[in-house]
């Protein structure tokens, strides 16, 4: 019998291993982390970025929780709210976050002489195995200090749930279809309409210590129910701790328990911080001396790698943790490039595959109805990944699909040519039901389609000139000429540069991508310059574009214009854009899609937003290094303040470029000199801010010499070396570049 038991045990173990054998092939495994010292930091509160909201998420998890500005916790289906003994909602002070950009927050609230401390995060072990994503909220009622006050009320904590309510309560598409609810408290579980939505562990809860209030069925979504109260503390000086586990959207069965429920909050926090540190340590390093910009950069990285969700074995990249928990080609393409720039090709590869899942039998790649720019965006993303990660196997696998997509684009162009009219030779009209806000011939869609076609050409014929791609090449050349012709005709007709559509009335959107990243016109082309000037004059408020309703600012739309400005060496404009973006972020560094002072509810578009994260990452990377033909440009967008002696060095390591990985460190060594350590895959042009004037550049280790090209720039050869950059004394005391 012993053997049979052993066989059974092995069978069970094998089955178990099959189901949870860690991350699947292709997903990098986190290296073991060591130190777990946790530092909490508070970020600056920018009133321009709206009320403070903290996102709680973890890689692999299928759910997220928002710690809302009013102090409640909302997951898109139900809210858990915390009250003091007199049923007043706990009002929290400034939030702090674990240093490093991780989505782990804490805050404290004072009420009736008591102080509650709350930490909130999604426990995570590392890797991105399937998980539903329970969030853990730990509330500690701190012991009262000073002489005992017999007249003071007994300290207590209450909790209640509701299923909707006021602003910020976006609905998750998977939320329960019920309109009215019944909340039941049983032991440590809080259930709603038969599904468990929260579980409480902790020492100071007495079984059955709930209030009989709103226990009947039929509670509307705006009312609280399922009240639970802490057992009265025997001694006001004792610590009361509640650990509230918020279940995923839709709830779970009453028998389910959160993973890690038996561990202490401290253990779970230490483990989660270790996992996040390992995750963030992967890939490329970009370190800038500006603490605020670095905070936003880290938060962007955390979001880009952290919102990935694994379900049914497949990894996916939702558009945002909250109301855009959906898949969009428009956002997904930017995420692919950002993941590659962050040196996470294994994630970028999956993200590209996700985009191509939206391919129709005709070849078109379309995720949302009427968004005809999706085909070009998916093709562009594939080529970005191919160039930055050198992923030849994915190109081989997807090239037939990519060629089919170009076939669909070419068929559209032929059909509109045959039809004639003002939009002949372009994509047909479309109604994306997005920010363009008009059914029209949207020229931004054509810009993306052409960028995609040219990307496929580069992948299909890397050397150029292969007869097999002659037809595609000719089609791309013709398409480019036609698109420029229509852009110019419409610019004359509508009296503005690079208009968004042939029909008047569309909002500016895809047309701002015509120079960067679509490269339909050079950044130095008069059309791109005119668009930049026009857009800044007409649409910018408080440093950000406002294309829709008055006062509603878009936090990422202007990044493509900033990228084009960077390529024109308009450093002041780039720095102004970068600072505006940073100024409109949350204290943890999270960026938004839209923000308005008039309606501080983000118009239902809660931060953080992955497109902001992706485009901000791209802009900071470009400010440090970007490709220009077969060479690199370094420091083209850094302010002089980053090069001050008191600052930490600028550090770039393992950063992928089209020409190979680049690595450099730049540090001010004394008042008149900078030291640059660099390993360059190609020759580089180093551009210093105009307020720094070069006296000379010498190689410190006998390596190749640098050549001065201007008072602020010099070139370096390919390879590794250390250079001392000497500055003229008259200028080094000068002010900042802005």
């Amino acid at each position, binding site marked *: *019998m012993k053997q049979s038991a052993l066989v059974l045990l092995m069978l069970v173990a094998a089955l178990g291993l099959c189901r949870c054998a860690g991350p699947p092939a292709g997903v990098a495994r986190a290296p073991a982390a060591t130190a777990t010292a946790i530092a909490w930091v508070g970020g600056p509160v920018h009133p321009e970025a709206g009320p403070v909201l903290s996102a709680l998420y973890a890689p692999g998890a299928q759910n997220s929780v928002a710690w809302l500005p009013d102090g409640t916790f909302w997951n898109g289906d139900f809210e858990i709210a915390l009250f003091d003994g007199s049923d007043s909602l706990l009002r929290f002070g400034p939030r702090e976050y674990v240093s490093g950009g991780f989505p782990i927050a804490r805050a404290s609230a004072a009420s009736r002489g008591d102080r509650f401390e709350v930490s909130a995060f999604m426990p995570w072990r590392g890797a991105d195995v399937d998980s539903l994503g329970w969030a853990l909220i730990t509330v500690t009622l701190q012991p009262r200090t000073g002489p005992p006050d017999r007249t003071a009320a007994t300290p207590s904590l209450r909790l209640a749930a509701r299923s909707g309510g006021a602003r910020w309560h976006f609905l998750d598409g998977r939320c329960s279809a019920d*309109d009215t609810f019944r909340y039941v408290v049983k032991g440590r579980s809080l259930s709603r309409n038969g599904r468990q939505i929260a579980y409480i562990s902790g020492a100071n809860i007495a079984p059955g210590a709930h209030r009989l209030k709103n226990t009947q069925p039929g509670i509307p979504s705006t009312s609280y129910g399922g009240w639970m109260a802490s057992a009265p503390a025997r001694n006001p000086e004792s610590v009361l701790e509640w650990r509230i586990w918020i279940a995923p959207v839709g709830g779970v069965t009453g028998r389910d328990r959160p993973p890690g429920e038996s561990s202490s909050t401290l253990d779970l926090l230490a483990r989660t911080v270790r996992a996040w540190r390992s995750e963030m340590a992967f890939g490329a390093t970009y370190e800038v001396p500006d603490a605020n910009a670095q905070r936003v950069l880290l938060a962007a990285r955390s979001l880009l790698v952290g919102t990935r969700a694994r379900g049914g074995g497949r990894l996916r990249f939702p558009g945002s943790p909250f109301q855009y928990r959906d898949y969009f080609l428009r956002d997904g393409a930017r995420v692919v490039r950002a993941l590659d720039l962050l040196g996470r090709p294994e994630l970028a590869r999956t993200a590209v595959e996700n985009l191509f899942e939206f391919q129709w039998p005709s070849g078109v790649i379309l995720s949302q109805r009427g968004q005809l720019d999706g085909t070009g965006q998916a093709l562009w993303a594939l080529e970005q990944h191919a160039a930055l990660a050198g992923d030849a196997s994915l190109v081989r696998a997807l090239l037939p699909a990519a060629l089919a997509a170009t076939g669909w684009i070419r068929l559209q162009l032929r*059909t509109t040519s045959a039809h004639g009219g003002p939009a002949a030779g372009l994509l047909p009209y479309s109604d994306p039901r997005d920010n363009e806000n008009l059914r029209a011939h949207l020229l931004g869609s054509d810009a993306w389609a052409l960028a995609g076609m040219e990307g496929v050409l580069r992948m299909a014929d890397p050397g150029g000139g292969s007869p097999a791609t002659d037809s595609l090449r000719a089609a791309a050349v013709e398409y480019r000429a036609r698109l420029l012709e229509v852009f110019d005709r419409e610019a004359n007709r509508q009296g503005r540069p690079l208009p968004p559509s042939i029909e008047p009335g569309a909002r500016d959107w895809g047309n701002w991508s015509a120079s960067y990243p679509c490269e339909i016109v050079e950044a130095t082309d008069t059309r791109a310059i005119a668009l930049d000037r026009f857009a800044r004059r007409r649409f910018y408020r408080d440093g950000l574009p406002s294309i829709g309703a008055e006062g509603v600012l878009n936090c990422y739309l202007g990044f493509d214009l900033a990228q084009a400005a960077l390529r024109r060496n308009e450093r002041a404009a780039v720095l102004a854009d970068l600072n505006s973006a940073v100024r409109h972020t949350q204290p943890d560094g999270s960026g938004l899609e839209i923000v308005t002072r008039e309606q501080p509810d983000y118009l239902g578009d809660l931060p953080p937003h992955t497109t902001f994260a992706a485009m901000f990452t791209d802009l900071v990377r470009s400010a440090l290094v970007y490709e220009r033909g077969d060479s690199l440009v370094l420091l083209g967008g850094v302010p002089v303040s980053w090069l001050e002696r008191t600052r930490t060095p600028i550090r770039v390591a393992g950063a992928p470029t089209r020409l190979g990985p680049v690595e450099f460190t730049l540090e001010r060594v004394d008042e008149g000199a900078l030291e640059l350590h660099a390993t360059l895959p190609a020759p580089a042009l180093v551009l210093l801010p105009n307020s720094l004037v070069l006296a000379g550049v010498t190689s410190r280790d006998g390596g190749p010499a640098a050549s001065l090209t201007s008072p602020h720039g010099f070139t370096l050869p390919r390879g590794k070396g250390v250079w001392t950059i000497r500055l003229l004394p008259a200028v080094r005391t000068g002010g900042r570049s802005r």
Partner: protein
Amino acid sequence: MSRQGPTTRAKSPRANAPRKPGPRRHKAGRSWLLALALVLLVVAGAVGLRIRAEQGRRPEPVARDVALKRGLLAVARGDDLEAEAWFRRGLASFPRDPLLQINLSTALNNKCFRVHPRRGVPMPVLATSLERFRVAQESLRLYRTIEAGLPRGIGLPHDRAQLFDTWGMPLDAMEDYLRAQAIGDTTRACRDAIARISMLQSVTDGSAALRSVGRE
């Protein structure tokens, strides 16, 4: 209680005592057989449960006309989910019925864009773009399946055109609307759709063109 009597002290076995080959081998073999039987039992149980679950999922058989009628009533009410369920039940019994297939295909595509109120907020019936895309592909596959069973020259271009039209691919839709006309579709819906796409493609003010079609 020990079986040994108080006077006969049993010799404790040696840790490395030589094994008696015969009966032990027999005992081991029996254990393996038992284990095998147990494993087979577990596997058989799992398979049985799966079959039962499959049977549970399979819809109850229903008469074709009933399924069609109930499904169409649900369509008229705008309840694509119920319509889909009825058409699927009908197809479970009559898998090659083209009418059930066509209606299922249409119900599926309608479902892609259907919103229903949840807690007072209009929400899409299908939560994500990926689900909507997959359902649209199933709808397209159904059209192909139906067309494969139809005589040559007869197809469902009008239905497919409507699918492309709702997904915002006007030229793909136009191609199928024209094909529908070529095989004898003289419906006003087809004519209007062709006129609408042509006008929107031609004129420089899309909104004006829309208004013009709306007045027709």
